[in-house]
């Protein structure tokens, strides 16, 4: 019995040990990649708590005492931008979901002349890159008298979000069993009621996905607000607002970086709350080609 020590380990133990040892290179590599990935953000955080002397003294590590005042100072300048982003992106996403669910339901469940043709017409818009339309869309908005109003942002954003939203929503509706709708039709419901009371509640996860993708897109959009709302500072969303903010606070390092951090928080919060919805939506299997 004592000679067991000199025997080789059973096969499973050997395999397990080999796996664990082999794994460490992978972990090392991943950590090696993740550290430089995250360090800039960590540095941002550290820098946001410094006052200028601390900044010039040490660039990369945390300095004590922490100057929370940087945050209260930056918040005043930066919060209007956050508010504008929330309003503009929020109204946009509601509009996108409204219009797109109507259209997607029609494409999915309806049967009318020209249905597929119209659908391909919509899909073909995916081929048109934004770069081609920027200038002309600006002139259009100008001619409609919408420059420097919130509608200059919201209306084009709603129209821009349609194609992808319709695509996703239609794909979802296509996979809903017909019987659910049949029984409602037999009960005398008209199509609109069916959409409202049956299709939409079912589609909540996929609508969540559409909402998240849409909000992320409009939230980060710099060019369009820059071009349409330039002369109305009260409407500045976060991207343009930040350009002003950076100009004003350059070399006032602590509050500058505090502002950057503050402006990142809403998205972070949004992400935390919506990731479960997002995953559930994707897992619902509606996104198929």
């Amino acid at each position, binding site marked *: 019995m004592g000679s067991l020590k000199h025997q080789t380990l059973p096969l499973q133990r050997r395999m397990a040990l080999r796996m664990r040892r082999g794994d460490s290179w992978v972990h090392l590599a991943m950590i090696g990649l993740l550290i430089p990935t995250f360090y800039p953000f960590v540095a*941002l955080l550290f820098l946001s708590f410094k006052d200028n002397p601390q900044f010039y003294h040490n660039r990369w590590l945390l300095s004590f005492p922490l100057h929370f005042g940087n945050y209260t100072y930056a918040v005043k300048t930066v919060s209007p931008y956050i508010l504008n982003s929330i309003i503009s992106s929020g109204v946009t996403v509601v509009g996108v979901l409204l219009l797109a669910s109507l259209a997607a339901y029609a494409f999915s469940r309806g049967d009318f002349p020209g249905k597929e043709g119209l659908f391909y017409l919509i899909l073909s818009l995916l081929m*048109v890159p934004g*770069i081609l339309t920027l200038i002309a869309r*600006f002139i259009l908005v100008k001619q409609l008298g919408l420059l420097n109003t919130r509608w200059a942002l919201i*209306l084009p954003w709603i*129209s821009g979000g349609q194609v992808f939203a319709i695509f996703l929503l239609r794909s979802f509706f296509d996979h809903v069993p017909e019987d659910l709708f049949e029984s409602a039709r037999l009960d005398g419901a008209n199509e609109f009621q069916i959409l409202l009371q049956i299709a939409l509640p079912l589609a909540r996860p996929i609508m969540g996905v559409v909402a998240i993708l849409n909000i992320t897109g409009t939230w*980060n959009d710099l060019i369009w607000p820059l071009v349409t709302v330039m002369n109305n500072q009260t409407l500045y969303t976060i991207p343009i607002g930040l350009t002003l903010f950076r100009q004003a606070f350059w070399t006032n390092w602590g509050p500058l970086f505090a502002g950057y951090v503050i402006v990142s928080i809403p998205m*972070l919060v949004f992400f935390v709350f919506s990731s479960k919805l997002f995953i559930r939506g994707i897992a619902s299997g509606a996104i198929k080609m």
Partner: protein
Amino acid sequence: MTAIAKKRAATRGRVKKRSLLQEIWHKKHWYLFLLPTFVSLLIFQYYPPLSALYHAFFRWDGVTKHFVGLAHFRYMFTEDWRFLASIPNVFILMVVKTIFVSRLFMPILVAELIYNIKRPRWAYTYRLLLVIPMVVPMMVILYLWEFIFEPNFGLANSLLGAAGLEKLQSGWFSNPKMALNTFLLVNFPWIAGGGTGLAPLIYLAGLLGIPDAIVDAARIDGATGLRRIWHVDLPLIMGQIKAMVVLGVIGRLQGYAPQLIITDGGPGVATLVPSLHMYKQAFMYAKMGYGSAIGLVLFLLILLLTFISMKYLRSSVEY
């Protein structure tokens, strides 16, 4: 008469075939469902590109126009030295950074690394960590990297100085020779953030979708490590790779926010990209017609590159 013929005779004349117009009127409620969408699309999505195509042949300041035929295009490719200088810039960014680094090398590396982790809990953690930087607004990331490469106070030069590598210190964005390269360096190590962060996750999902049978067969055949990656993994996720590369190219050709925000195309034209040139021509000099012409050229370039990518990146191997 046969039973079938009897039935046909009985039903003949009972169902009237509707004309197209009658069919449309009968189904009119569906068109109402589509109405809001199409109105918004017609106004903001169909009209502008058509207007752009039209005005590319005019001198236009947004109010008055004056037909000039192909003059814009002639000017663009012969006399507009800024435009001509911007083309190699965007190609360098596109080929080196977007294609090779952000959409091929780094994401495949990361996807393979995570794929080869035995314990799923670690794999999940790493995936989560990759997603987190996507939450930070693009502007913050740009300004953060602008600061990192700030010549006097930025992290890059400070770190180099502290490590005794003063020789490597540079003006970064303010140095005409270094500015474009600095854009290549932004977002080091290029595995997360914005669109870049999606690629490893998508490739990983593709790898996880490879059936065990194939993985085992490969192992039995002796294909391990790099050989397995090259001969088995990559062909099987070629579909995802194609998609990410094409999307990356399309985005890179159109995007100019980093260049606008950090260097405004400078110093000189060192970091000018065609889309930024278009933006400036249209919105700073009110040369809307010329800008539309540049937009048109970019559109055709995108079509061309997309077509080439689809054709020449080998199709995903089916199993």
